[in-house]
C-alpha cells in the first residue's frame, strides 16, 4: 500500500506495511487506516522494498478521522486541528517510557521476532574486530596519557557498539559531524591506528598539523569533520551540511553524533527544528550514556530521554539499545534510507553508558558508584554481547579473539613508536593554510624567523624540520 504525500511540491511515495499490526493494536499505536492498494507497483523505486522494514508508530490521523471524532475542526495555518470539549492537559511523560529497540538480548541471543536488517558473516566479523580494535586503542592511549606521553585522552569505553555499528550501517559518502566520543566511525572508514597515533602526538603526519588537542580527529578524505570542542555546535552545522547534500541532489546524508548533555544546548533544538523545516537528510545519533561529565541525565532533562523530543519537532525518532550492535546497525541503516529517500531528518537515541571517566582530566568515581560502572562494564558490555552472537553463529572463536587482540596490540605499539619518533610539523607550516599565496607581511615574518634561527641554531628544536 502506498500513500502519496505531498511535501513542498515534491511527491514522495511511502509504503506502509503495518496492516497486521493495525488490526491488533489500532488505538494503542494510533495508526491510520490502510490506504488503497497501490496499483502501479512496477513504478516503485527499489528503495521502497527496504522501507518495508520500518514503520512509524505515530502516523498523523487523516482529516476524515478527525472529522469523524470531533464535531468541528479549526482550519489553522499548518493544518486542521480538531476541537474537544474535554479539558485535558498533556502530561509531562506517558506512563510507559518509550521502549528500546533491541535485536540481541544480554546473552547475545537473537530476540524473536525482529524486523532487523540482516548482517552477513563477513560484516559481523569485521564489526566485532573493529570494536575490539577500538577498545584496545582506548586502553593503550589512555595509559599513554597517564605516562605523560600525550597531554590528553578520552575513551569510548562502553560505547563501542554505537560507534562501530552506526559506522557500519552508513556509506562512506555520508558526511559525519562528530562530537568527540565517536572515533570508531573514523576507524571503520579506514583511518589507521597509525593516523590516530599521529594525531595524538601532533606530529608532522597529523592531518591537523598538530594544531589541535589530542582526540580532535578529522579527515576530509574520510568525510569526517574535525572534532570541535564547544558542545553541540556540530548539530546545526550537520543540518547545514545535509542541506548542501540536498541541494546537490546527492544520494548521501549527514550524520551527526551528540551526547545526552549536548541536547541541553540551544544548538540541539535549533538543529532539530531546522532539520524538520528544511527537510534535511540528516541522522541525529544521540548517545545517551547517562552522564555529562558529573551531571546525571536526571539533572540534564526531565523528559523521557531524547527520543521523545523528535516528535515535538516533527522528526521520526527511535530509541535503540546502544549496547546491541545489531540493533544499532538496523536502526542506523534504516534511518539513513529514510533520510536520503524521503529527504527528512531522523533522530536515534542510543541508550548506552560511559564506562570510562569523562576524560583524562576527570575521576568519575567521585560522583558515581563503582558498582554502577562495573555493572555496565561487565554485565552490559556491548563487545562481549556481540561476540557471543558471532561465536554462536560459528563465525568466531576464542583463538580468533586472542590472535586479533595480540595483533592489534602489536600494531598499536608500533604505531605509537613511529608517531612518538616522527618529526613535528615543519617550520613553514606556521605560515601556510590561511592564504593561497603568503601575504607580504607573512613572507617578511618567515624570512625574519629563518634568519633568527640561523643565528641561534642551538635554540632551535631538533625535531622540527627547518
Amino acid at each position, binding site marked *: 500500500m502506498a500513500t502519496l504525500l505531498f511535501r513542498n511540491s515534491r511527491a514522495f511515495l511511502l509504503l506502509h506495511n503495518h496492516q497486521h499490526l493495525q488490526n491488533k493494536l489500532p488505538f494503542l499505536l494510533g495508526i491510520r487506516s490502510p490506504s488503497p492498494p497501490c496499483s502501479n507497483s512496477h513504478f516503485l523505486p527499489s528503495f521502497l522494498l527496504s522501507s518495508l522494514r520500518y514503520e512509524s508508530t505515530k502516523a498523523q490521523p487523516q482529516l476524515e478521522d478527525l472529522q469523524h471524532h470531533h464535531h468541528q475542526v479549526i482550519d489553522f495555518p499548518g493544518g486542521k486541528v480538531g476541537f474537544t470539549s474535554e479539558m485535558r492537559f498533556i502530561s509531562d511523560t506517558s506512563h510507559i517510557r518509550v521502549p528500546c529497540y533491541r535485536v540481541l538480548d544480554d546473552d547475545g541471543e537473537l530476540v524473536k521476532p525482529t524486523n532487523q536488517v540482516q548482517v552477513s558473516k563477513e560484516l559481523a566479523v569485521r564489526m566485532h574486530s573493529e570494536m575490539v580494535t577500538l577498545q584496545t586503542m582506548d586502553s593503550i592511549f589512555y595509559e599513554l596519557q597517564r605516562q605523560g606521553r600525550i597531554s590528553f585522552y578520552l575513551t569510548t569505553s562502553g560505547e563501542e557498539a554505537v560507534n562501530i555499528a552506526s559506522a557500519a550501517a552508513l556509506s562512506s559518502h555520508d558526511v559525519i559531524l562528530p562530537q568527540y566520543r565517536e572515533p570508531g566511525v573514523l576507524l571503520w572508514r579506514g583511518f589507521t591506528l597509525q593516523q590516530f597515533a599521529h594525531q595524538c602526538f601532533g606530529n608532522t603526519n597529523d592531518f591537523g598539523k598538530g594544531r589541535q*588537542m589530542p582526540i580532535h580527529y578529522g579527515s576530509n578524505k574520510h568525510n569526517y569533520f574535525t572534532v570541535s*570542542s564547544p558542545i553541540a555546535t556540530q548539530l546545526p552545522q550537520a543540518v547545514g551540511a545535509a542541506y548542501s547534500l540536498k541541494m546537490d541532489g546527492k544520494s548521501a546524508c549527514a550524520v551527526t553524533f551528540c551526547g545526552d548533555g549536548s541536547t*541541553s*544546548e540551544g544548538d540541539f533544538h535549533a538543529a532539530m527544528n531546522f532539520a524538520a523545516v528544511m527537510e534535511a537528510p540528516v541522522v541525529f545519533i544521540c548517545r545517551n550514556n547517562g552522564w555529562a561529565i558529573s551531571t546525571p541525565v536526571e539533572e540534564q532533562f526531565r523528559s523521557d530521554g531524547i527520543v521523545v523530543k523528535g516528535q515535538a519537532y516533527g522528526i521520526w525518532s527511535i530509541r535503540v539499545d546502544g549496547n546491541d550492535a545489531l540493533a544499532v546497525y538496523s536502526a542506523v541503516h534504516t534511518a539513513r534510507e529514510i533520510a536520503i529517500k524521503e529527504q527528512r531528518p531522523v533522530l536515534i537515541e542510543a541508550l548506552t553508558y560511559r564506562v570510562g571517566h569523562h576524560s583524562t582530566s576527570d575521576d568519575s568515581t567521585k*560522583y558515581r558508584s563503582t558498582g554502577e560502572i562495573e555493572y555496565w562494564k561487565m554485565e552490559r558490555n556491548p563487545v562481549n554481547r556481540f561476540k557471543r552472537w558471532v561465536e554462536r553463529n560459528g563465525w568466531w572463536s576464542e583463538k580468533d579473539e586472542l590472535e586479533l587482540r595480540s595483533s592489534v596490540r602489536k600494531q598499536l605499539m608500533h604505531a605509537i613508536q613511529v608517531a612518538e619518533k616522527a618529526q613535528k610539523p615543519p617550520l613553514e607550516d606556521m605560515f601556510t593554510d590561511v592564504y593561497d599565496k603568503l601575504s607580504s607581511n607573512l613572507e617578511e615574518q618567515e624570512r625574519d624567523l629563518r634568519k633568527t634561527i640561523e643565528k641561534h641554531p642551538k635554540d632551535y628544536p631538533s625535531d622540527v624540520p627547518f
Partner: protein
Amino acid sequence: MLGVIRNKTIRPSFSAFRFFSSSAKQMTVRDALNSALDEEMSADSKVFLMGEEVGEYQGAYKITKGLLEKYGPERVLDTPITEAGFTGIGVGAAYYGLKPVVEFMTFNFSMQAIDHIINSAAKSNYMSAGQISVPIVFRGPNGAAAGVGAQHSHCYASWYGSCPGLKVLAPYSAEDARGLLKAAIRDPDPVVFLENELLYGESFPVSAEVLDSSFCLPIGKAKIEREGKDVTITAFSKMVGFALKAAEILEKEGISAEVINLRSIRPLDRPTINASVRKTNRLVTVEEGFPQHGVGAEICTSVIEESFGYLDAPVERIAGADVPMPYAANLERLAVPHVEDIVRAAKRACHRSVPLAAAA
C-alpha cells in the same frame, strides 16, 4: 593586634581574622574566590550560584568547594549544559531582585550566551532609564591555560571591555580576587569577572584587612603594584606577575619600572595610567589576548589623547600572537608573552628617544 584577638575584644566585622595568627598569611587565588563567594552568600541571602557542575562537583576548578553543602541546592544550582539558558535565567533573576553569580566552565563557553550578557544584561539599565538594574556576576577562567588548544584559550577582556553597561574585572592576586569578587557581587550592575586558571593554585600574602569579611575593592581603580620612575608597565591578570618579574630584572639593569595592575578593564582607570606615564614618560602595555583592538590598544589611545606631550618614546605593546592558540606546547609558549618580552620592550622604550623614533 594579636593581643586584641587573644583577648577576644575583636569587633564583629573582624571575625574572619580570628583564624589567622599573622598578617603575613598566604592564600591561594582559589581560596580567595571561594571565601569571597562564601562570605557574600552568607551576608546576603539574595546571592546564589549557578553553572555547570558548580554544586556536587564543586566547580570544574573547585572554586565553589563546600558551598552546596553550606547553602543547599537552592542557592548552588547545578545546571544542564545550556550556557544561553542559565545566563538568560540569571539575567531574569537579576531583573527581579536576586543576585546571581553565574560560572562559565571557561569564558570560551560564554560565547554561547553572549547575547544575554551584551544585549540584555549590559543594556537594560540604560534602556529602561534606570528602572531595571541587573546585579549579576559572570565569572570563570579566561584566556590561555595550558595545552588546551584554540577553543579553550581565548582572552575575552577586550570583547567585554568594549561594551558600555558592563563592568569588567580581572584579578591577579588573592587580594584582588577577594576584594574584586566581593565588589562585583555587591555591585548593582552586571560584572564580567575574568579569572585565570593558572593563577588558581598560586599563593599570595594577604593582610588582615584583606581577610576581613568587610573587605572590598573599588571597581574602576587600578593598583600601582610597584612604583618606578623610568617606564610604566600596565598589565592585568596573570601578566601582572610577569610585569613584576620584569621590573625586578630591569631594576638590576638600572631601569626603574612602575607596574600598574589594572584590576578593572572597564571602567579603565585612565587617571592612574596617565599620571604614571606623565611621570615616567614611557609606556609598555602587556596582555595575553590578541593585539588587534586589544586592551593595550585602548590604553595606548588614552595616553596619546591625554598625555601625548609627555611621551619620550613610542608606546610598546606586548600581546598574544595574532593566531588562534596553537596546541603544540612550544608554539603555545611562543604565542603568549613572557617576562623577557616585557624586559626587552621596556628597554626599547627607555633607550629610544622621540627624535630617534620619529626618524625610524
